[in-house]
């Protein structure tokens, strides 16, 4: 008997704009002891599904059944469900800072779990908590028992969360993106810890993530969700070798790790649908490369394959025959070495002084002697963990922060020596694209105004010529030029990032600094943007400084990579060189911590067993 089994779970969340169909007839079962992965893009209903199962979604309307050890969790009383939570089902959440109560010590928060389910005296509870904290790798656990969450680093907090989830040795743990908020190297440690704990306690784990590489390396079975629908489910190896569903295939092909340097990714076109309305046919049809007329009109059937893979599709996924030949090859690096420098920075240091209390000044060395050059026409990648000073360096290069020491030359001109007028002029030559597609556009201004902002600020052109230029730019970045009158909120994340890029292009800058431009986007959208950036560079001869924490993305798009750690550049070489023979230990650690999904074999060994009509609630009604 499976430990937990969901049958046709349908979730509707009522909101002001109508009901959100967050899950549609989702079924899955998890055997004891396995690690079950749930993958899918943001908003696909992964978290909602798990929270609904645990009874943590009070407002939702839930149908179907969820059997835990044979008992239906959806029909049991709240008190019974409460007895299960914690004791039988442990949960780990994405953001360990906001998931721990800021006003209670971590020890007491874990001990509370024991007291809620068992009659234990205080000393005994404390002993058990300390023991568990030690097991998850918290040094001096007895002392740290009385510390507050804000005194821990992100990775440590996630360890605390894991200790909390495990303290009662529940048979099942649900981990919702347990590593997404952490640095890559910490991510690796946490995954390892989870894996170790699960093996030593025999715990079953359901892990939600959007990180396909991670799943491929740890999960036994994987379920892929899209728009609240389970599109594919199957054993990890088979699924990653050759998915049965076109969406899974699309996801894998748009992940940069799937191929090496340079060649364009194959993104999934379009954007995820609204969950307010259910389409008549297949939910994925508007974005599917394999879609036919049938897909738009008829709900797809459930196809079962010989290796127990199940997919919700009219067809079986296949790699297109006429794989588009890579139209562009990266120009040989040699031609670039001769090119002149756009950025030359030497010995950059930046120290922030903050006063704490009375007199005691605290010095924070953010940059410690950074040397950096960017040649014309190349893409320099800057990678490093959070807080290592990447963004600060970007701000210094853009002239927005003044270094304590060192010099920045843009196109051979030292920016420190510029007069006010020249400094403003310099602004035109360096433009930035920011990470957060929701935060980097003023929500109260129209897109046309946003894109023409640089021209307005620098008094370039007339109103009419600016408008023409805006429309041209929108066309260039793949936006409909008719939409210049809309507000940012009317665009999706990927489209907003295009708006940001159009704005950066407006003045034909010598350098574009891209500060984590794709890390807030889903893989399929990320691939669209990466391809756009490459195409633009090719057509317009742009120079990029590309900042990211994601090595596979950086490897995909950059000619050279600089690795940054604690305010210093520890290693800098061509992408290939860096991946082939990393010199610095930190680089090696970074590389070791990155998971890549295995390459697609493209070989289809399974065969179709059955095809049954799949009815969602709506279709029946």
């Amino acid at each position, binding site marked *: 008997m499976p430990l937990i089994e969901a049958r046709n779970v349908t979730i509707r969340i009522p909101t002001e704009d109508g009901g959100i169909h967050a899950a549609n007839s989702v079924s899955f079962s998890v055997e004891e002891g396995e690690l079950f992965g749930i993958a899918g893009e943001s908003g696909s209903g992964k978290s909602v599904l798990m929270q609904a199962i645990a009874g943590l979604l009070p407002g939702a309307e839930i149908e179907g059944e969820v059997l835990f050890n044979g008992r239906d969790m959806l029909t049991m009383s709240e008190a019974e469900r409460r007895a299960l939570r914690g004791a039988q089902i442990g949960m780990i959440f994405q953001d360990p800072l906001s998931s721990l109560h800021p006003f209670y010590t971590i020890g007491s928060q874990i001990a509370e779990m024991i007291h809620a389910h068992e009659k234990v005296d205080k000393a005994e509870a404390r002993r058990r908590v300390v023991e568990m904290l030690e097991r998850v790798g918290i040094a001096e656990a007895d002392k740290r028992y009385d510390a507050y969450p804000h005194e821990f680093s992100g990775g440590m907090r996630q360890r605390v969360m894991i200790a909390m989830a495990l303290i009662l040795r529940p048979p099942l743990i649900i981990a919702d993106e347990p590593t997404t908020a952490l640095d890559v190297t910490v991510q690796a440690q946490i995954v390892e810890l989870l894996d170790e704990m699960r093996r030593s306690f025999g715990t079953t784990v359901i892990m939600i993530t959007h990180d396909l590489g991670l799943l491929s390396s740890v999960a036994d079975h994987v379920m892929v969700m899209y728009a609240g629908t389970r599109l594919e489910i199957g054993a990890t190896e088979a699924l990653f070798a050759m998915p049965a569903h076109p969406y899974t295939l699309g996801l894998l092909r748009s992940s940069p790790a799937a191929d090496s340097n340079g060649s364009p990714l194959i993104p999934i076109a*379009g954007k995820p649908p609204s969950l307010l309305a259910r389409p008549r046919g297949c939910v994925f049809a508007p974005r599917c490369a394999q879609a036919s007329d049938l897909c738009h009109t008829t709900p797809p059937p459930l196809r079962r394959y010989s290796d127990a893979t199940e997919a919700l599709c009219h067809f079986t996924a296949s790699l297109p025959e006429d794989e588009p030949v890579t*139209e562009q090859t990266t120009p040989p690096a040699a031609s670039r070495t001769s090119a002149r420098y756009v950025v030359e920075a030497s010995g950059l240091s930046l120290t922030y002084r903050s006063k704490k209390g009375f007199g005691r000044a605290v010095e924070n060395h953010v940059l410690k002697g950074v040397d950096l050059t960017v040649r014309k026409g190349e893409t320099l990648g800057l990678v490093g963990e959070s807080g290592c000073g990447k963004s600060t360096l970007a701000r210094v290069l853009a002239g927005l922060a003044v270094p304590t020491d060192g010099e920045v030359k843009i196109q051979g001109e030292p920016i420190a020596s510029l007069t006010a007028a020249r400094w403003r002029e310099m602004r035109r030559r360096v*433009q930035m694209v920011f990470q957060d597609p929701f935060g*980097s556009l*003023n929500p109260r*201004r129209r897109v046309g105004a946003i894109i023409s902002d640089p021209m307005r600020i*620098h008094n370039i052109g007339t109103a009419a010529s600016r408008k023409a230029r805006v429309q041209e730019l929108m066309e260039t970045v*793949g936006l409909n030029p008719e939409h210049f009158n809309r507000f940012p909120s009317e665009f999706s994340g990927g489209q907003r990032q295009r708006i940001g890029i159009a704005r950066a292009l407006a003045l034909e800058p010598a350098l574009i600094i891209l500060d984590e431009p794709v890390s*807030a986007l889903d893989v399929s959208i990320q691939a*669209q943007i990466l391809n756009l950036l490459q195409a633009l560079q090719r057509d317009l001869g742009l120079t990029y400084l590309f900042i990211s924490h994601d090595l596979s993305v950086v490897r995909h798009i950059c000619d050279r990579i600089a690795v940054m750690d604690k305010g210093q550049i520890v290693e800098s070489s061509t992408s290939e060189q860096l991946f082939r023979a990393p010199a610095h230990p930190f680089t090696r650690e970074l590389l070791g911590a990155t998971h890549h999904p295995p390459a697609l074999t493209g070989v289809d060994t399974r065969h179709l067993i059955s095809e049954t009509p799949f009815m969602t609630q709506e279709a029946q009604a």
Partner: protein
Amino acid sequence: MSNAPSSTSSSDAPEIVQRGAFALTMRRLLRDPATLISFAFIVLLSLFAIFAPLTEIWTGHSAIEQYRETGMTPMGLPVGPNGSFLMGTDQLGRDVFVRLAYGARISLAVGVLASLAAATIGVTIGMCAGFFGGWVDTVLGRIMDLVMSVPFLLCALALVSVFGPSLSLSVSVIVFFSWTTIGRVIRAESASIAKREFIQASRSMGASNLSILIRDVLPNLAVPIIVYTTMMIPSSIVFEATLSFLGLGIVPPTPSWGGMLADAGANSIYLVAWWLVVFPGFALLFTTLAFNILGDGLRDALDPKGRKIVRRRKSRKNRTTTRKETAQ
């Protein structure tokens, strides 16, 4: 650009009609009967105040004249509501109805003027403090703290005792002690806006501080400004009425609601003439109630986030913000 997929390719997807912010707001407002009723009440009250002279013509009674013959009992007590005096008369035989109409003028004028003035000051100072941060914020923030730690009604008393009661003094006192309410809110809001990336974007393009303040910060403060200014109107009205009630506001015999209530309270005359407290009292209550409901309704309609019961966190958008927070 061959492989840059056009975003318009999504247009073949069944698209949910995007409503403009204004249309959405109106739709929410129209679904909220309490707000609509309040709004209607405020409109009627404003008409009542604007056309106050018409009540004089209609009843034939002036607001300040004392009708000792018709408006008082032989024992010198005020008469209750009747055909000639719709809402009765006060202890001096004046027509409560007509005085109520003129009092509405004072209340509304003071409420609206003082709120607008206080909002202007509060928004300017709050915006500068929040946006510039650093020592500007320290100084302005301290000033706000200072004003807020002052016993304002006592200080108002002291001022009135020196300069004598007057309408302009009332308004100044109200403005001086209420701009901090909105100032505090705007300061916090602008501080969080100043950290948003679009501000950095403008800055990286070379925009000046003034341009950023006006084009980027101010428009994003529209919601709190509208809501808090609306909510400040009722407190200004009560503040004025309180000053008048303590005999420190509008100088008699000019009618004001607070003054009418003060007259009713003097010698406890209202215990034998309920209409002296009921009419002006409820006029005051309903007016403040209407403005408060309108303010609440506007906030819900303009900023529905505050209404949602479960907040939705955007996972990976959050990611880096958390990372940055932990890094600092």
